[in-house]
């Protein structure tokens, strides 16, 4: 069954959607959208490092994404506004990454594959990495769900309930780095943030509890992956962007329905 490249691509897309969607809910609730972007953009630097030191792409990207996310967390609240800080870090990381890649003489790399993903070239080994990472992220979020939710609502409430909201932030950071590392093959660094945010935002108008929002986001993300790949096949369009387009159309659709029902209320 895994011999078919479309089957492997579909499984890879669904795996990434399952990890990205619940995590994306927290990204949306905590207003960390740009944070996701910054971490993702840093991934291209990770690609360059992996190729230089002949590590697996996954390891290099994971390491750089993690360093990036931790740096942002550490620098937060020390002088610059968060969006300025992220703007500086995200685009510098992307620029340094692109420059670093250009130094890699002798290695022919397809930059486009990393910027926009190369989901149709997913191998069995990639699939194992993606599902391993996705399972880890889902397990982390499920395990810490109520603590993450409490820390998202109010830091002091978290302390008074006997746990450290900074640790929960760290868990989200870790999950984000893993998600970026597994998603790079599927949608590429430029569109990873879209897989985090769009399904979660689309699920908002459907949900009346945090749990249903996360589940709806996962469903919307998975559907986008399947439908996006299908339309890429039929219309011969790039696969990663097609997935994001389907998610965006679903977002517009559900938002319109949401507004309509709100007006009727």
């Amino acid at each position, binding site marked *: 069954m895994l011999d078919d490249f479309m089957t492997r691509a579909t499984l890879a897309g669904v795996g990434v959607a399952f990890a990205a969607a619940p995590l994306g809910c927290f990204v949306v*609730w905590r207003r960390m959208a740009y944070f996701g972007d910054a971490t993702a953009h840093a991934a291209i630097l990770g690609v360059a490092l992996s190729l230089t030191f002949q590590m697996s792409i996954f390891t290099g990207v994971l390491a750089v994404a993690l360093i990036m996310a931790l740096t942002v967390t550490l620098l937060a609240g020390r002088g610059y506004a968060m969006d300025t800080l992220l703007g500086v870090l995200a685009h510098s990381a992307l620029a340094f990454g692109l420059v670093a890649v250009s130094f890699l003489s002798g290695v022919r790399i397809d930059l486009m594959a990393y910027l926009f993903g190369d989901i149709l070239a997913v191998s069995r080994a990639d699939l194992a990495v993606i599902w391993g990472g996705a399972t880890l992220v889902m397990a982390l979020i499920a395990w810490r769900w109520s603590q993450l939710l*409490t820390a998202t609502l109010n830091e002091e409430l978290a302390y008074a309930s006997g746990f450290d909201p900074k640790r929960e932030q760290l868990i989200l950071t870790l999950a984000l780095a893993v998600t970026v590392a597994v998603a790079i093959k599927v949608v590429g660094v430029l569109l990873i943030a879209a897989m985090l945010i769009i399904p979660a935002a689309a699920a908002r108008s459907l949900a*009346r*509890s*945090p749990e249903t929002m996360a589940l709806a986001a996962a469903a919307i993300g998975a559907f986008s992956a399947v439908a996006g790949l299908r339309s890429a096949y039929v219309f011969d369009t790039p696969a990663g962007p097609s997935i994001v387009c389907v998610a965006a159309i679903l977002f517009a659709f559900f938002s319109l329905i949401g507004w309509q029902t709100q007006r009727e209320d």
Partner: protein
Amino acid sequence: MTLITVENLSVRYGANTVLHHVNMTVEPGEIVTIVGPNGSGKTSLLRAIIGATRPSAGKVTLKSGLKIGYVPQKLHVDPTLPISVERFMHLTNRVSRRNCVEALEAAGVPDLMKRQMSQLSGGQFQRVLLARALINQPDILLLDEATQGLDQRGSAGFYQQIEKVRRETGCAVLMISHELHVVMSASDRVICLNGHVCCEGSPAVVASAPEYRALFGTGTGGALALYRHEHDHHHDHGENSREAAE
């Protein structure tokens, strides 16, 4: 047995010392209010008690197994986060539906279970926060400026609810407030803070202390009068006299 003991507590942020050598205790069942001007370290003291801020010197000791019900100053529910009152009530504890109903009743908002948090008014929101803090039958309630954003009538009603909760459950209350006249009448003991403990004692003692007057000026003379007026009637029909005082 003492619930909270703060000994010789100092808190520093960088070079800025916000609290120095603070000593205080909270005993079971009493209502203690911390008053102080802006920047006097009220919130830092509360944060040190719940463990959100590390003391630079001294220590905070909680009675072992102390159950704290915390009512935050402000809780921001992002519009993108759908959460009902019922779900919010068991955010950190698994509780039965009955506990949930009882806690909402105790906080004076029995009918809000199914509402979304984002649809509540300011007053309802604060009461739901209070209900959430009560759900675990806490030994002590901690309130950080819990009536910010409420009008005077709203906050007077809120403090009456706190007194009622104390009367019914016997839990201690430690709160911070800037609404001196409303809060002081409801307190057993007032601690006046300005980086250190300026003065403390019963509301009448604190209100007439020169340290307190130096901080809050003579404008609080009216608050004192209000307090006295209420105290005359407090024990038999406190509720009525407070309404009359409004």
